[in-house]
């Protein structure tokens, strides 16, 4: 077992859900309420020292009870290692703690997750849409139930099933 997984499991026996190690990537899943504590531990602990935020992402699993998965990826420039932190969010209560107080770069990355997947972030300084227009009301484009051709007025276009000859 990887030393990060072991340490996180020892320190957070309550919030730890699971961990995987595949193709050299270490991923740790924690419960939503412990997320900020774990992130703080990753950021401040001298053995972890994850000072660099790589990306914030989200995955939609429509069949699961807790539908959305929010993914943070961190890197340590001093120690040269990386880790992936994940948590699950149900659709009915789609909110998770923001990590902008630990990594400033999380601001825009979390806004993108909100814009694309509709997951809200508690204590985020400026949670608005970032890539889609502010007045966009047709939903969240990267959700699996959002059709590829788009929604709203575009959906009323006549699509040709076959090329006419």
């Amino acid at each position, binding site marked *: 077992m990887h030393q990060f997984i072991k340490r996180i499991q020892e320190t957070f026996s309550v919030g730890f859900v699971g961990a995987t190690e595949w*193709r050299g990537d270490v991923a740790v899943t924690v419960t939503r309420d412990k997320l900020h504590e774990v992130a703080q531990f990753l950021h401040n602990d001298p053995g972890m020292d994850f*000072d660099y935020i790589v*990306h914030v992402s989200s*995955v*939609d699993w429509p069949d699961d009870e807790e539908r959305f998965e929010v993914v943070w990826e961190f890197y340590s420039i001093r120690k040269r290692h990386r880790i992936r932190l994940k948590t699950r969010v149900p659709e009915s209560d789609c909110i998770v703690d923001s990590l902008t107080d630990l990594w400033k*770069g999380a601001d825009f*990355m979390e806004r993108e997750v909100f814009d694309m997947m509709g997951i809200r972030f508690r204590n985020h300084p400026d949670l608005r849409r970032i890539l889609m*227009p502010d007045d966009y009301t047709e939903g969240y484009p*990267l959700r699996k139930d959002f059709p*590829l051709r788009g929604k709203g007025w575009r959906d009323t276009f006549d699509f040709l099933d076959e090329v006419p000859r």
Partner: protein
Amino acid sequence: MAFEDQRTTVYKVNPEHPESETLPTLRTEELLLNMGPQHPSTHGVLKVILELEGERLVKSTPVMGFLHRGVEKLAEDGTYHQFIPHTDRLDYVCAMYNNFAYCRAVEKLMNLQVPERAEYLRTIVAEVQRIIGHQFWLGTQALDIGAMTVFFYCFRDREILLDWFDELCGARLTTSWYRIGGVERDLTPSLIDKLKQFLDYFPPKIDEYVVFLETNRIWLARTKGVAVISAEDAVSFGLSGPTLRGSGVDYDLRKYEPYSAYPKCDFSVPVGKNGDTYDRYWIRVMELYESVKIIRQCLEQMQEGPIMADVPSVTLPPKERVFTNLESMIQQFKLFSQGFNAPPGEIYCGTEAHKGELGFYIVSTGGGKPYRLKIRAPSFIHMGAFDYMSRGYMIADAITLFGTYDVVMGECDR
């Protein structure tokens, strides 16, 4: 006299201070200015709402997404091979490096070993692309600041390399030359000759660019001490590439997590001190010299060999076999229409593009299409620090700031 009348309306008497009856105070207010979406220096379609106090920036709010095409959503609908041309359109100035980053990510997912010659070819072309990217950056940044000559010199030399790309893969910008497991075609003797000629021709030209700029007082005044960011803040914002190295952090994935043929090459990573626009410019110029060094070493070390991994279930057959051999034709057809069967799992793979760390996070549930594909675009993350870095500087420095990130909106908005 009409002018005088207008002026008097601006003044007001402050009742708190009796002396103000004789010395009227000037009424001031914050000005809100929309910069863009159509502005030649924003390198695409970007709007920034600037809050100004006089000529100083108090706050700036980037409004992005004008070029959003939903590339991540499109990726979920196509096979892994089909997504390669989409990556060209991310950072359309440097398509090769996007192909490279994406192919590396899929190779990590499939646990694929790339043959040695292909690794060298990939490194050579990636470094040629880095030269093109930095030339493009230097030319446009100088043009934005007002030094026009450098632009022509940079673009003249960039043209040579674009023609070289044209001969290599038939396209100048949207190249799609990299393939999962290797590259599309080998370098011909003519291409190697032309590249060698360019390597002899180019270093004196870099000195020329530098002379133009280093002796230009306007360039120095507008880059030195402008848009300073400390190393700690730069790391916290997740900046990467020359933008981070300008602040003195030597984070370069070519050295930190060596890939392709980089570990076999001897090169250094230039690092700045002050974290200002000038240091970031200097790093990019120094990287031009380093790229020339890397390409030279690769051309020397490169041996004959296959250019594509031989894993028929994943990699494409050579093109000449597709047109002569039925099995290869079927293989090619099946790989493009159905894709290969990826194992379930998730990976993240970052690559040091010339703008910064370009990463792909791929979630696979098996089958021929990615379940989720997230692009970690350096331009987007750099824009997150725009507000923080612009505060307190002059309005004209906002333009320097766009330039210093080397922002391309195709990548920023995806």
